[in-house]
């Protein structure tokens, strides 16, 4: 495992092109394009203001940089450095900007969710989609990029519009049986649209592409409901994480629950392996602790750590959530399937130091990673069943069915890994810190 040197970045703006050749990073108002392999700067673009959002087009030819405060979007071409495009949303303001899947249109959501403006780079045309709904995930493109589902709100009712992305033709428009729609998500095969209601009500609706309601699922009532949703890459399973600290898996044939994954505070599942991160801090005398920390603050973060396999049953540290406040820190906030559909990783918000890995073949708990600090991010390798975890320290954690490792990032100074990004080949991993980034090259199979 090798690490590159550290590069600067701001706002954690760092993206790998979809074809995996380039690495784009933003440093203040500059956009830097690097070759992934050599890390040499290929292009350098200067934007009008500090970039807030940056995105590659699907064909890896263009990059859009959004400056929401100014209501500006700038598009750069990789092939033609001279070419450039600037979109000004004007006084209405800009809330979010994104590429359409074809890479020739930009969809801007204006402030107050007033409308969605679709800009075409082909013919400079502009079209509007009115009444977009302000919600968790109001817009989703199907994986093949052919269709877009958009949640709308009209006359105090929720609607969904399905557009053909090719020419923005409205294919379907239908009302949904939701109180307050929270999100829409296409199945990876693009044939089923999962729609879930607000957290006040546990309700998942499954619509066919042609707008037919396939099924409705509700696990319980009168309690905070769905917190997160994830499709398995094969579209076979729909995992629903909810505030009751459980993940429910629906199947794609009957849309009924197959299994319920609980996240108990005491793990006594004999088939599961619990890895606990044990840190070995350098012993620092108490009197010169502050001095030491001041002089070499990195030493705190450079401490060694390793995993230990715990004897069952294991008591997992939990956090008592403040239930009086909105969005309490309880329930499954994030879940994601591995690329081979085999594993599901989840995180329960009131057990912030733990990542749970479930085996979907055995339909049971596979492993639990109990970290020393709060888990910030976990991402699956896009090719292999390998999970990368970061906990806002200078270490990278990797889990695979074979075991678990903790790797210290060999970087001078303070480098806290806040976010992770896999290269599409799965050979390298981008570690993103507060204003730095570092590439981690995995040992390829030939080498090992």
């Amino acid at each position, binding site marked *: 495992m090798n690490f590159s040197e550290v590069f600067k970045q701001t706002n954690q703006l760092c993206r790998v092109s979809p074809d995996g050749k380039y690495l784009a990073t933003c440093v203040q108002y500059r956009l830097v394009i690097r070759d992934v392999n050599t890390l040499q700067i290929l292009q350098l673009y200067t934007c009008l203001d500090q970039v807030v959002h940056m995105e590659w087009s*699907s*064909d890896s030819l263009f990059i859009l940089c959004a400056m929401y405060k100014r*209501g500006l979007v700038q598009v750069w*071409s990789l092939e033609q450095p*001279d*070419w*450039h*495009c*600037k*979109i*000004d*949303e*004007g*006084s*209405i303001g800009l809330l979010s900007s994104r590429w359409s899947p*074809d*890479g*020739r249109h930009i969809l801007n959501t204006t402030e*107050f969710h*007033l*409308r969605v403006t679709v*800009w*075409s*780079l*082909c*013919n*400079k045309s*502009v079209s509007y989609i*009115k*009444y977009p709904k302000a919600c968790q995930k109001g817009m989703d493109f199907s994986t093949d990029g*052919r*269709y877009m589902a958009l949640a709308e*709100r*009209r*006359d*105090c009712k929720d609607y969904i519009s399905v557009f*053909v992305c*090719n*020419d923005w*033709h409205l*294919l379907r428009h239908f009302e949904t049986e939701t109180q307050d729609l929270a999100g829409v998500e296409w199945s990876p*095969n*693009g*044939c089923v649209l999962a729609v879930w209601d607000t957290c006040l009500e546990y309700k998942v609706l499954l619509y*066919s*592409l*042609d707008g037919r309601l396939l099924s409705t699922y509700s696990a319980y009532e009168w309690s905070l409901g769905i917190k997160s949703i994830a499709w398995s890459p094969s579209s076979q399973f729909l995992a629903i994480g909810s505030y009751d600290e459980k993940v429910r898996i629906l199947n794609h044939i009957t849309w009924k629950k197959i299994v319920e994954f609980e996240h108990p505070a005491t793990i006594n599942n004999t088939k599961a392996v619990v890895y606990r991160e044990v840190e070995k801090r350098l012993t620092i005398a108490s009197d010169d602790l502050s001095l030491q920390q001041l002089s070499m603050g990195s030493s705190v973060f450079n401490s060694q750590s390793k995993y230990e396999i715990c004897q069952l049953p294991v008591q997992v540290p939990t956090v008592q959530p403040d239930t009086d406040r909105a969005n309490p820190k309880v329930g499954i906030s994030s879940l994601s399937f591995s690329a081979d559909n085999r594993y599901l990783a989840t995180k329960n918000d009131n057990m912030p130091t733990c990542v749970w890995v479930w085996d979907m073949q055995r339909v049971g708990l596979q492993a639990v990673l109990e970290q020393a600090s709060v888990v910030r991010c976990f991402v699956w390798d896009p090719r292999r069943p390998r999970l990368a975890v970061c906990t806002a320290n200078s270490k990278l954690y990797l889990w695979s069915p074979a075991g678990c490792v903790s790797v210290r990032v060999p970087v001078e100074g303070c480098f806290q890994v806040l976010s992770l990004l896999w290269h599409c080949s799965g050979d390298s991993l981008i570690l993103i810190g507060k204003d730095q980034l570092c590439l981690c090259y995995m040992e390829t199979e030939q080498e090992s």
Partner: protein
Amino acid sequence: MTMPEPAYETKEICSVTRLLMSPSRQNSVPALPSALLLPKNYSVLSAFCTEQNVNQCTSYINQEMGSLGLCGLSVELCDGGEGLEAVSALNLMYELLQVNRRSQRALEEMENLHLRSTSDLEHLQHGHTRLKDQLEYIRRENSGLHEGERQLQLKIKTLQSCLKSEKEEVQKLQSIISSRATQYNHDAKRKERECTKLKERLNQLLVDKRDKKLVIEVSNTIGRSDGKRGLWKTGKAEARHEGEMYTALLTDYEARQRSLMVENAELKKVLQQMKKDMMSILSPKKPVAKGAVPEDSLEQVDADAEEEEEEEVCESSRESLEQSCEQAREQLTNSIRLQWRRLKNHMERLDSQASLAASQERERDGEELISRRVHEEELQRLRLELQQCRDFVQAQQQLLQQQLSSPCDEETAALLNDCYTLEEKERLKEEWRLFEEQKRNFEKERKSFTDAAIRLGHERKAFEDDRATWMKNQFLNMTPFVDRKRPAKSASTSASSLGAEPEAKVISTPAPLTKSHSYTAFNTPKAPISSRTPSTADLYRTLRLLPDNSCTRGSGKRGSRLDSSSVHSSGEHSTAKSRQRPPDSSLRSHAKDFHSPT
């Protein structure tokens, strides 16, 4: 209580005397105070009676006696007037003493009674106070409980009221919540409407204002990613989109169907395999089962029919497997169900067979196919059986022993015993009879033997006499009768031999013990017998006179008779012997009979 009784008695006794006394009493009544006063007046003397008032005293005394109920007695003055009549006075005194003693005893009793009653009273009082205390305590407790109850009731009441109020509160809150919810919903809707209205307005304004800033600056437009040109929005395009959508859906469904088909095919394959296995498991066992259990041939027939049907079904299902239509599936499931049922039945039957007709089956196909397990099982079973038999035999033996040693422990044993005793009794009776007969015989023989002994004694004596006479004769002189004596001697010896002969014969018949006795009797001649029986002596004399011509006839007669008797006896002896044997054998048979039933 006891006081009045003697008073009444005395009253009756002195009913007559009272009449006599009545005048004196009348007289004494006025005198009594004076008499009572007398001691006071004459305190110096302090005497009840003085010489002056003797009369009055006596009358007073009499009166008093009368009042005391001693009417029959009175103190009487002597004729002279001075001095009292001693008898009456003494009687009176005695009576008085008696009365006094009685009253004293009564007093004592009363005192005792009093004491007892006081103690009783005390005890009762004590009890009473105790009970009172208890009552008081209980009352207090009761009141306390009452108080507690009252308090609890009060509490309940307050709690009930609380509950009521809480319920009301809840209801109120619920109504508030619902009203708030409706209010909120209403407000939200209103706000949303306002918001949309505002958005609309904003949109309108934006459109109207023709926001100059809302622009796109592109250095030069770029081609579409697919290289095609943009198309006009037409009905055709719409139709095409629809078509595309449906094709997408269709492909998805097709893919899904394909995967399901594959899955189904795999499952069917598994099913087929399972069925085949099942059939292969079931079919070869059939003949064995048929051979082993001919009883359930009816069932077998049924099963056969079923089997045939099944085979038909499964064949048809196999044919139609490729068709995979609804009917085929139904048939398949049906056949599987049938197979399953059959398997179950078979298993059950096997179970029952294994448990019930295991031995039978084993016997039958023991030669052909004895698996090691079966063999061992059989061996085990036989061993068990052997052990059981052994145990049984031992138990029987033990029982027998018990019966023999302590026969009267059970009713049946007693009964059996009775039988045995009866039998034994009978046998004993028989023996007794035999014994009696023998005894009689013996007695007879003994008599004859004694007779013979007597005879012998006489003979000897006669012989002695004869010898003496002969000696005397010889001694005296050579008489011319020498020739005459010789035959007489020979005759006597022959006679003696003759006499001994029957004796021996008679003796041989009884038991050897009697024989020995007879020998002793024979060896020791009884001297007094000869003197005792002159008649026999006479007889012997006549015997001795055998050589005499006059007696030869009689003796010859006798000898012949004896001979015949001896012959007879010998015959009798043989018969006796033969007669004796059967009872013996019968006894033995009895014994045999006795032993055999057990």
